[in-house]
């Protein structure tokens, strides 16, 4: 593998604290983060994961987070709650991928009223025991799927579906060096895709 970005510094301190979550997304962006492959080995002593599907930790540490990676847009009230908690705790909040940036595939429902969607999904003719889901654990849907920047301020975006692994690598290595990367100018074309 050719590393087109500088390797991580040898003795950083303290560890970079990273939190991630998937809102209305497919976890593809998390898979792309893991696709940085052996760079992960370089990062073992440099970063620590806080709230993340990788750790199964549900609450953000009160110590503060260096980078919050948000995958997915907002389709329900729980998504909004999680996002606001990230914004409150994260030094750098990153909208990761097409869904976080503009709603992505889930936003295809935005032209259809929610009541009509629910009717079609749960009450349509031919369904066995048609009924609307009423479990209190299920968060209510928002009228529209929203991108992250329409709910909280965003510091950085990693475009793509998913963003290429090189984009994650550049972001993490730059933040370890305490430098915010300029995605538009620092990343080669193949690493800042919209597709």
């Amino acid at each position: 593998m050719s590393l087109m970005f500088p390797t991580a510094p040898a003795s950083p301190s303290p560890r970079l604290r990273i939190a991630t979550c998937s809102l209305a997304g497919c976890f593809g962006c998390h898979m792309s983060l893991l696709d940085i492959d052996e760079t992960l080995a370089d990062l073992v002593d440099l970063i620590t994961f806080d709230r993340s599907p990788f750790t199964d930790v549900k609450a953000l540490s009160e110590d503060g987070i260096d980078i919050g990676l948000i995958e997915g847009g907002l389709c329900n009230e729980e998504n909004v709650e999680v996002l606001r908690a990230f914004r409150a705790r994260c030094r750098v909040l990153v909208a990761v991928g097409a869904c976080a940036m503009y709603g992505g595939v889930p936003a295809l429902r935005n032209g259809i009223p929610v009541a009509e969607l629910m009717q079609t999904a749960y009450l349509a003719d031919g369904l066995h025991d048609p009924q609307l889901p009423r479990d209190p654990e299920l968060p209510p849907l928002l009228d529209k799927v929203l991108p992250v920047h329409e709910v909280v301020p965003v510091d950085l975006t990693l475009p793509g579906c998913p963003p290429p692994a090189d984009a994650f690598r550049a972001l993490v290595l730059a933040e370890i060096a305490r430098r915010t990367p300029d995605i538009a100018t620092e990343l080669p074309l193949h690493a800042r895709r919209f597709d």
Partner: protein
Amino acid sequence: MNTQPHPAEAAAATFVLDGRSIPFTPGQTVMQAATAAGVYVPHLCHHAEFEPVGNCKVCSMQLDTSAGPRMVTACTLPAREGLVLHSETPAVQHDRQRLVQMLFVEGNHHCPFCEKSGACHLQAVAYHVGMVDTHFVHAYPPQSVDASHPDVWLDRNRCILCELCVRASREIDGKNVFAVGGRGAHTTLLVNSASGLLKDSAVAATDRALSICPVGALMPKRQGFAMPIGARPYDHADIAERPADT
């Protein structure tokens, strides 16, 4: 009296673009002269085959005047001796980026599953102007899709109203299939048939109106995703490196 400049004199006429002297011949626009000189000016509604209309404003650049700088569209501005223009300044690029971002939020441009992705001029210009987010609140406008024709489909979600299909259908295909109607946010691409549907129009999959569409609004059916990722025109080349495409 012959008022036409002598050819040698005409060829020597120049204007200044980003500090570079650009030669032009009478009748050329700034865009035409810049393109002939190998200078790329970002654009979407302009095409060398047609008269410019100045719809998209993406080619806007700053013109120095005695009353101060003002923005002009390079595709419609006649080249004149002594013009001083600025195209690649951070301020102009920033304005262009905002224009492109507005096109993204005023339509429904889903690059991840659009078969035009990688070959789309809107997407490629967005890369060129450094767009990495959409900045504005998304409108998610409800738009219709016309899949009535056996060989052609129209997805108005992706249309940027550049009118290239309108001009191509009228001037090259000789069919006059398309028009733009409505006002403001309700402006939309119309199909010239009694039903308003493609199936009742004279359009064909081989029409120039389809191949000239800079986005994925007009596409031939059953050819989606024909080019694999990595082999598409703008996978590795900036649109400025492929001027023949536009």
